[in-house]
C-alpha cells in the first residue's frame, strides 16, 4: 500500500488486514514500554491545512510509538497562511525528505491531488479532505465495532450482518462517506438518517438505506447508532430552522437512548456538541464508545503508518 486516500479503494481483505495489524498495535499500548522500533529513521510529516488538535495528536502519538520522526507542519503562522499553495508546500516537504505525509485539507480531493502529482514521492495519508473522506476515522470506527462484538476473537473477522445507523449532517460529512464505503465492504448494512437538507440530493450508487425519521430507525433496533456533529456554520444557512428543532427531531436524547438495547453501541467521531446532536446521558452511557474510539484511533493510525512505510519496503 503506497497511499491511503479513501476507504472506497479498500477491498475486504485489505481492510480486515489493517484492522488485524491494529490489534497488534493495540497490544503495544498495554505494555509498560509503549514503543516499537519499527519506523526508526522514517520521517512522517503532519501537514494540517485545517485545525484539528485531536486528529493531529492521534497521528503524532501513533508515529512516535513506532519510533518515526514526526514533524508537525501546521498552516497557521506558516508560509501556508501567507498564500503558499499545496504544490510549493509539497515540494518543500519532498526536498526535506519526508517518507509519509499525513494531510488534512479543507478541499475535497487534496490528498489525491498530492498523491497523483509529481510534486512529492512520499506516501500520502488522507487525514480528512474537505467533505470527501476521512479513512482512518472509518477504520477506527470499524475497529471499535469489531472489538465490541468479538473482543479477543476479532482478528480475521469482518462486520457481516451488523446494522449501523448514521445520523446527522451526511451532506458535509467526510466521516459518513468513509464509513458508508468501509462498512459496506466489511459486510455491515448502513442506514442514513437526516433531514433532507443534510443529505446529498443524489445518492445513486450509495449502498445504504435512507430515512428522515430517527424514531423509526431507533425502533428498527440497530446494532450501532453513530451520531455526527452539527457544525456551527450549518445553523445559519437554512439547513434547519434552529438548533432546538434539530435536536428534538434528530438528536439522541435520553428517551431515545432508553429505547435502544443495552448492547447497542452509541458512537460519535467527536468533538461532540452535548445537548444538540447527543445528550450527556447518551455520551456518557455504557453504550457509548466515544473514548474507545479515541484509544483505537492511535492503534489504527499506527497500523496504517506501519503498512505504508514498513510494508512498502517489504514489497
Amino acid at each position, binding site marked *: 500500500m503506497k497511499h491511503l486516500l479513501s476507504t*472506497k479503494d479498500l477491498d475486504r481483505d485489505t481492510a480486515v488486514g489493517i484492522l488485524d495489524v491494529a490489534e497488534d498495535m493495540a497490544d503495544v499500548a498495554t505494555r509498560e514500554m509503549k514503543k516499537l522500533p519499527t519506523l526508526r529513521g522514517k520521517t512522517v510529516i503532519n501537514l494540517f491545512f485545517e485545525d484539528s488538535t485531536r486528529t493531529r495528536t492521534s497521528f503524532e502519538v501513533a508515529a512516535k510509538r513506532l519510533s518515526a520522526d514526526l514533524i508537525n507542519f501546521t498552516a497557521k503562522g506558516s508560509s501556508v497562511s501567507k498564500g503558499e*499553495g*499545496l*504544490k510549493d508546500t509539497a515540494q518543500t516537504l519532498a526536498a526535506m525528505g519526508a517518507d509519509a505525509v499525513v494531510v488534512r*485539507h*479543507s*478541499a*475535497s*480531493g*487534496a490528498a*489525491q*491531488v498530492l498523491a*497523483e*502529482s509529481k510534486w512529492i514521492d512520499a506516501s500520502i495519508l488522507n487525514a480528512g*479532505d*474537505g*467533505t*470527501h*473522506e476521512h479513512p482512518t476515522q472509518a477504520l477506527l470506527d470499524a475497529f471499535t465495532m469489531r472489538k465490541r462484538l468479538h473482543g479477543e476473537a476479532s482478528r480475521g473477522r469482518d462486520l457481516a450482518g451488523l446494522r449501523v445507523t448514521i445520523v446527522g449532517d451526511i451532506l458535509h460529512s*467526510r466521516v459518513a*462517506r468513509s464509513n458508508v464505503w468501509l462498512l459496506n465492504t466489511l459486510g455491515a448494512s448502513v442506514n442514513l438518517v437526516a433531514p433532507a437538507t443534510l443529505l*446529498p*440530493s*443524489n*445518492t*445513486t*450508487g*450509495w449502498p445504504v438505506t435512507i430515512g428522515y425519521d430517527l424514531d423509526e430507525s431507533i425502533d428498527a433496533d440497530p446494532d450501532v447508532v453513530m451520531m455526527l456533529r452539527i457544525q456551527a456554520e450549518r445553523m445559519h444557512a437554512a439547513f434547519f430552522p434552529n438548533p432546538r428543532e434539530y435536536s428534538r427531531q434528530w438528536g439522541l436524547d435520553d428517551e431515545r437512548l432508553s429505547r435502544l438495547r443495552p448492547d447497542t453501541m452509541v458512537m460519535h467521531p467527536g468533538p461532540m456538541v452535548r445537548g444538540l446532536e447527543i445528550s450527556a446521558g447518551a455520551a456518557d452511557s455504557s453504550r457509548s464508545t466515544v473514548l474507545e474510539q479515541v484509544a483505537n484511533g492511535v492503534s489504527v493510525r499506527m497500523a496504517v503508518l506501519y503498512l505504508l512505510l514498513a510494508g512498502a519496503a517489504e514489497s
Partner: protein
Amino acid sequence: MIVITGATLPDGTSSDLAIEGGRFVDVAGKGAGSRVIDATGLVVLPGLVDLHTHLREPGFEQSETVLTGSRAAAAGGFTAVHAMANTSPVADTAGVVEQVQSLGDQHGYVTVRPVGAVTVGLGGERLSEIGAMAGSRARVRVFSDDGKCVSDALLMRRALEYVKTFGGVIAQHSQEPRLTEDAQMNEGAVSAELGLAGWPAVAEESIIARDVLLAQHVGARLHVCHVSTAGSVDVVRWAKARGIHVTAEVTPHHLLLTDELARSYDSRYKVNPPLRRDEDVQALRVALADGTIDIVATDHAPHPAESKQCAWDEASFGMVGLESALSIVQLAMVDTGLIGWADVASILSRKPAEIGRLAGYDAAFVPGSPANLTLYDATVSHVFGLEDLRGKGTNSPYLGRELPGRVIATIHNGYPTVLEGELVDAAEVALAAQAARSSREMSQA
C-alpha cells in the same frame, strides 16, 4: 492572389476558389502569378466565428493577450472571435472596447469583436454605457456579464429592452447565484460521492426560463451562453416553439465530456458551467443537430498554470478551447453522423456571425464576399498535446487524447494566418492586415 484547388466545399461538391483584394473572385482565368494551395482531400469551411472567447487583455495578460488568443484562434481555424468583457478594467466603456478591437486589428490574425458588459464592472447593479459602446468605433452588438449572471430580473428586463434600440443582443450567463454559492461541479451522484459542492442544473434552467419569458414580454433578442443541461434544452426548445427570439450556444467540452472526469480531482476538468452527466451530453448533441441549439462557441478560458496546479476547490474555472474546437465538433457531431460539414459551416460560422451582427459571413465563397476560410483535413488524427496549444493557456482537457482532424490553412480577409498547419509569422500577418485595411479604406474613399 491566392488560388485554392480541389477543396471539398461544405455541401460536398468540389471547386477551385480564387481570392484577390481580400475577397473571393471568379476563379475563371486565374492562376498565373498566384499562390496556389492544393487542397485536394481537404474540407474548406467558411472562416470560423467564435461568439464566446476570453482574450484576458487588458488586465490579465499573464493568462492571455489579444495577440496570443488571436493566434490560438487562427490555429483553430477561426477568423473572428468575440472577446468577453470580464477584463480589468471591465469592457464597460467605449474606450475599453475600442482598445480591444484595435489591438485585434493591428495583430490581424482574426477579427476581434469586443463584447460589452451589461452592468458597470459586471457588478449587476447599474447598466453600463451600452449605447456608447454600440455607437463607438467597435460597434458593439453583443452584451454580456459572462462569468456572472445578470440575476436581477428588473435589470435583465431593462437590458433586453435597451439593446433593442440598435439591434443588440444580451448574451446571458445563466446561473442563479444563490443556488450555486461555492459550487464546484455538477450536482449529482458524482458530486455527492466526491464531496464537492454541487452546481445544480436547476440553477441554469430557472434563469433561462425566466429570461425567455422576459424576452418574450419585451420583444427582445436573447442569447443563452453555454447551455449545459438536458433541462435547458427543453426550455429553449419550448421558447423557440413559442416564437421567442432566443438563440443558444453549446461549448465543445459540453458536447463530449462528463462529470465522471471530476473523479480524478484534476482541475483541468473544472469549468463553469460544469461538465454534466452523459444524458446531458446526448441531449445537447441532439439539440445542436436539430437546431434547438444554434451554435458552438468555445468559452476559451485560459488560466496561468498556478491557477490549476492546486486542489480542486482552489482552482479557477475554465478550459482553453479555440485550438481544439473543430476537432471536438468533428468527434462529437460529424463522426457520430449527427450532422454534416454544411451544418458545421452553419453552427461555427454563419450563425454565430449572424447573432453577433458580424457582416461578411452570410455568403461564404461567393465572389465579392470577404475571403475568410479554413482548410481542414478531417481524415487524420493525432494525440493532442501541448504543441497544439498556441495561446498562453495550457489548461486543455484534451491533452493526451486522440483527436481527429487538423487545420491546414486559415485565411482571414484574404491573407493567410495559418499555412501548412503552422501559424504565419506575427509580423507578416500584421503587415498583411495593414495592407488589407488600407486597400479597404482606399476603395471606400
